[in-house]
């Protein structure tokens, strides 16, 4: 690959950006438009962040023609990658950038959610900080609204600032139709069909939280985003759903919850195997 790099600027046909986004480990990046890169306004402040800023920018925009030794080249190459990443974070929240990333999202280029109950929902890259060299990139699942570590180590070491903390959420603000339906499905640890008490208690508590939230949203007449057809839910979860419904119906009867607690201790999981 390095050989390829050295050729790329001399008079090799390929553009640096083409090479960069197609090289291994950079699959998460999309290509930044030439005119976005050449507009100085978009690069405000980056000269303080990137060493050899001008050379790096020249390299990224394929106008680099400095004669220098390999070591220097290496440094500039590194700066160029850093610069590209930082511009990338700004670019992907523009209309065009969002559209490009959306394409990649639809193709699951960023991977799929490892959580079983998300059923391989596509992920989006997010940073946990907007400052470079703080946290590596993470992957955000819009279905369970949590972040995960990328599977492969070459992605796991990429800087999160190249994607930024806001991108994923801006995407869903701009394309609200893409917000996935949420689901109350969840895993409940069991021993021979019996729920594990400590975990089940937490599950109940979380279920109450969820119901509170849904009630809150209903009062404000805001769509909660949960799928309403409770009957679609898997066998495994049926019992929990019933309990939850109980919780909703008898919300004010404080005992209901404790009664529920009692029964779970005794009742074997409905789904006998």
């Amino acid at each position, binding site marked *: 690959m390095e050989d390829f790099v050295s050729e790329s600027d001399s008079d090799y046909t390929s553009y640096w950006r083409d090479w960069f986004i197609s090289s291994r480990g950079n699959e998460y990046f999309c290509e930044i438009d030439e005119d976005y890169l050449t507009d100085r306004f978009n690069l405000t402040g980056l000269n303080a962040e990137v060493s050899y800023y001008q050379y790096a920018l020249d390299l990224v925009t394929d106008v680099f023609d400095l004669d220098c030794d390999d070591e220097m080249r290496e440094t500039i190459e590194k700066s160029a990658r850093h610069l590209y990443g930082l511009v990338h974070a700004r670019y992907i929240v523009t209309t065009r950038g969002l559209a490009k990333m959306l394409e990649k999202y639809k193709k699951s280029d960023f991977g799929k959610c*490892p959580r*079983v109950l998300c059923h*391989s929902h596509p992920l989006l890259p997010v940073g946990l900080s907007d400052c470079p060299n703080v946290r590596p990139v993470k992957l955000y699942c819009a279905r369970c609204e949590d972040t995960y*570590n990328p599977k492969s180590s070459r992605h796991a070491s990429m800087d999160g600032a190249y994607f930024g903390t806001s991108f994923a959420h801006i995407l869903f603000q701009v394309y609200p139709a893409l917000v996935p339906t949420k689901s109350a499905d969840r895993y409940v640890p069991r021993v*021979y069909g019996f729920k594990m008490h400590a975990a089940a208690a937490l599950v109940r508590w979380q279920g109450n939280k969820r119901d509170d939230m849904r009630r809150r949203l209903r009062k404000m007449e805001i769509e909660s985003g949960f799928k309403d057809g409770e009957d679609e839910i898997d066998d495994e979860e049926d019992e929990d759903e019933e309990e939850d419904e109980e919780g909703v119906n008898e919300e004010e009867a404080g005992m209901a919850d404790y009664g529920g607690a009692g029964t779970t201790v005794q009742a074997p999981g409905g789904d006998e195997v």
Partner: protein
Amino acid sequence: MLQIHIRSIEIETSWTTTPRHSSTCPNGPFIAHDGAHGSGKRPHDNGIIDYHNITTATWNQSSESRTSAESSDRRKQKQKAARKLGRIFSSTESDHKPARKKRRTDITESGSDDYPYHPRIPDWLRLISRPKVITPPDVTMSTSSGSPESWISSFCSLLGHEYFAEVSEDFIEDDFNLTGLQSQVSLYKEALEMILDVDPEDDEDDEDEEDEDEEESGGDGMRGGQRGHARVHSDLSLIESSAEMLYGLIHQRFICSRAGMQQMSEKYELGHFGVCPRTNCSMARTLPVGLSDTPGMDTVKLFCPSCLDVYVPPNSRFQTVDGAFFGRTFGALFLMTFPEYDLSKAGAETLSNLPPRPAGDENMTVNGMYARNIAPGLGKGRIYQPKIYGFKVAEIARSGPRMQWLREKPDDITELDEARLYAQEQGDSEDEDEAMNLNTRTVTRKRPQGNARLRQAAKQAQNGSHTAAEGNGAESEL
């Protein structure tokens, strides 16, 4: 192209078979057996009994009989047959045979030196402490020289079978542990023989053990005579796949027994099952679980005790492993059997940045678990908060957060002690619970039915439920 490929496999096969025999026994009795096998002679008759000093141990006995009995061409045939036919899950699994060899060498070269755990030492052997029998250097030596390997250990060293524990033969030989499996697995008897590395010729000796099986399946007795021939034919691969299914189902039961738990806990400690992919779990170690106890439903998943959720294993090679081979019970039972594990171990250093947990007492138990071990990866500071330019996305937004409940946990974990809270609320001022003494409210309400039991539960939660959880683990021992 294809031809070349096939040839390379063949070469590989012969490479693993021939040197294996010659190098294992420089003095040659094993080579002699290769010839002896055809005449149906039993390997032990030839006086290599002192090969490992422990002919009484079934494990070694059977593994010896296997190598000596398996003439190289039979082995080849077996491998070829297995390659040809798809196995339980997918056709890609047929690639496993060459991989098996590869992995073996991997283990011998690096595995044994790196850490004390060695996949080839069955842990039950260690547990019953017979140090004379197998000491680690011994094993390393015998491995590198390609010593006999039982079906079980070679199965466990297959690519993608890293999660499996080696079921002890004692466990398999106990008929009680196999109750009901006969109806679930085709070619049950043959499969069992394969797992135990029992030669069909040895049937006479094991007659009384396997009497029942013979009676139950009517035509079996007749087939018994021909089995020697039958097994070398093409149904070998069928048996192989039945054996894998049977082993998996036994494995499901075994890992819930005491010895199995022990073995799995060692694998857990070494991180053999991988870590949770969730960012806020900070690489907490996971446990393999199934989502169903019936085979063929779903593949193996990873249960993260830190966030109480299940994840798909990162490597696609585990997508050929049936989840039923681990079962639904194992994950939770593991937590109850070993309540003292630090579940968030790998992320211990990042924990210090978080607000100290109000549950100050290290050993406080809630609902039968140590409070610090109830979903340590959840709760305040461990929930992802979506932000745009530093501003939180509001709940009332169309794209606002809706799933945070899934990662929430009460700040005060004792809130989850429902039984105690209930008792407090109902407040029989009379007696036992200290908690009730704190309750100053006078209670007029009559005690509803079922209260007695709950009160008991509350009491238990206060003093003894931790031990109760441990007791559970012990009871599960089969």
